[in-house]
């Protein structure tokens, strides 16, 4: 059994970095824990669930998808657009982060293969960290996950010996490749892994999906969405939300076609050029969000588009909590 002292995680990060990996890890800055590129000197913060999800590193919030050289006299020619896909290890992703990967893989390979996503996906190794505790927003167990779930992960670190140690368990080839790269920071040894603390199961996603598929016009949505102020905090924090916008930006010499995150919570998301909006109010938008995750996704991809990480509810200024909405939906279905 490979183990590492929790206090030596930065050594592991350093070793992986020296082995040529870009290391992404949770770091506390300005009172907020955020997954970011790790550089020497940064402490790794394992306590809190980071505000951002891992998707930042697979599907960045803004990326150039096409370039054009603009000509002085008008007109353009296509220009090459280099893809940057550094070999990356995400150290300390949560199981609920890793669990998002199958859902993202599904949409980004749905008949049309999205090269930019897949290139990053292939270059990333996920070393997740089993959760030693859950807060009131966590609900992974309601959506098929677990605090020590391994879906999507290449390796998992399990807290042991009262948190002093972590047991490293490789799960895939990519995960095993970390062992030589870790260059001795992982030691052979034994440790007593802790039983992870699971949040209570709050609803049955299949029951929720059934109600959603049959109750599109329910008055429930108007009331349930009243508090929503229509920002994109939930979608941007979500490890699965993948909606995007394509926007051109240019100066005199070059146009860059950018893919930027977008959110179904925004009023302009579905607005037609004619002025017609299929989702004219926040209730339609909140319904889309919940329906996409618990009904449309299972229908199309046989997987939920929610991993129960709870980020959306943890961050929502208006207290919109998707697990609570699901609980209420389940009750309505009974």
């Amino acid at each position: 059994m490979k183990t590492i002292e929790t206090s030596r995680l930065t050594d592991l990060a350093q070793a992986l970095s020296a082995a040529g990996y870009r290391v992404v890890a949770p770091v506390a800055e300005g009172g907020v824990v955020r997954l970011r590129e790790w550089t020497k000197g940064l402490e790794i913060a394992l306590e809190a669930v980071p505000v951002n999800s891992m998707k930042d590193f697979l599907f960045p919030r803004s990326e150039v998808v096409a370039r054009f050289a603009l000509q002085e006299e008008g007109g353009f020619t296509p220009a090459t657009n280099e893809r940057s896909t550094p070999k990356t290890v995400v150290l300390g992703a949560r199981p609920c982060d890793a669990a998002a990967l199958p859902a993202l893989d599904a949409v980004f390979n749905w008949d049309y293969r999205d090269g930019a996503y897949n290139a990053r996906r292939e270059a990333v190794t996920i070393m997740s960290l089993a959760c030693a505790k859950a807060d009131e927003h966590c609900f992974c167990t309601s959506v098929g996950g677990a605090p020590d779930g391994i879906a999507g992960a290449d390796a998992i670190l399990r807290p042991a010996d009262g948190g002093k140690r972590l047991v490293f368990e490789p799960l895939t080839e990519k995960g095993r490749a970390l062992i030589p790269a870790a260059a001795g920071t992982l030691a052979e040894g034994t440790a007593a892994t802790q039983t992870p603390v699971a949040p209570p199961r709050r609803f049955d996603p299949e029951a929720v999906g059934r109600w959603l598929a049959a109750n599109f016009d329910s008055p429930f949505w108007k009331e349930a969405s009243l508090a929503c102020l229509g920002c994109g905090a939930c979608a941007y924090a979500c490890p699965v939300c993948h909606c995007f916008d394509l926007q051109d930006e240019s100066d005199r010499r070059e146009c860059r076609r950018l893919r930027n995150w977008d959110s179904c919570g925004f009023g302009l998301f579905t607005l037609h050029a004619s002025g017609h909006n299929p989702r004219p109010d926040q209730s339609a938008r909140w319904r889309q969000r919940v329906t996409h995750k618990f009904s449309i996704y299972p229908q199309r991809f046989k997987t939920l588009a929610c991993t129960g990480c709870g980020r959306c509810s943890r961050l929502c200024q208006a207290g919109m909590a998707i697990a609570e909405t699901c609980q209420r939906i389940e009750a309505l279905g009974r």
Partner: protein
Amino acid sequence: MKTDTAAVPASAATFEPRITAFVCNWCTYAGADLAGTSRLQYAPNMRIIKLPCTGRIDPLFVLKAFENGADAVLVSGCHPGDCHYTSGNYHARRRWTMFRKLLAMTGIDDDRLFFSWVSAAEGQKFADLVNDVTAKVRKAGPFRASNPGRKEC
């Protein structure tokens, strides 16, 4: 808006400041005209963008100029009381008072952002102003490295 982002070679010896000036049509632009017709010599570093009135100069214009690589921005219009539209420059003045404080807080201070009143009769003042601003910006150096709003893609 299509503007130029190409980097100007930044070595101190060859640095030529690129300064964007937003000026009103009635006073400062006429003052610049007068400077020209009077054959006054002044630094060639300023690109003038003429607008009807300082009241029409949206703070976004200034941010756009910095975003696209301006080393400095000058805003200039009619003296108080002289506005062609009676109060456009008074409106602008209050806006600029707030805006320059805000920009200074974010790192664009009065080495980079200049304001002036230049009337149609002040050709000499305009020439002196351009020379003075250019000299200050030259001294401050290229703005790329420390410009908080520079374009990055």
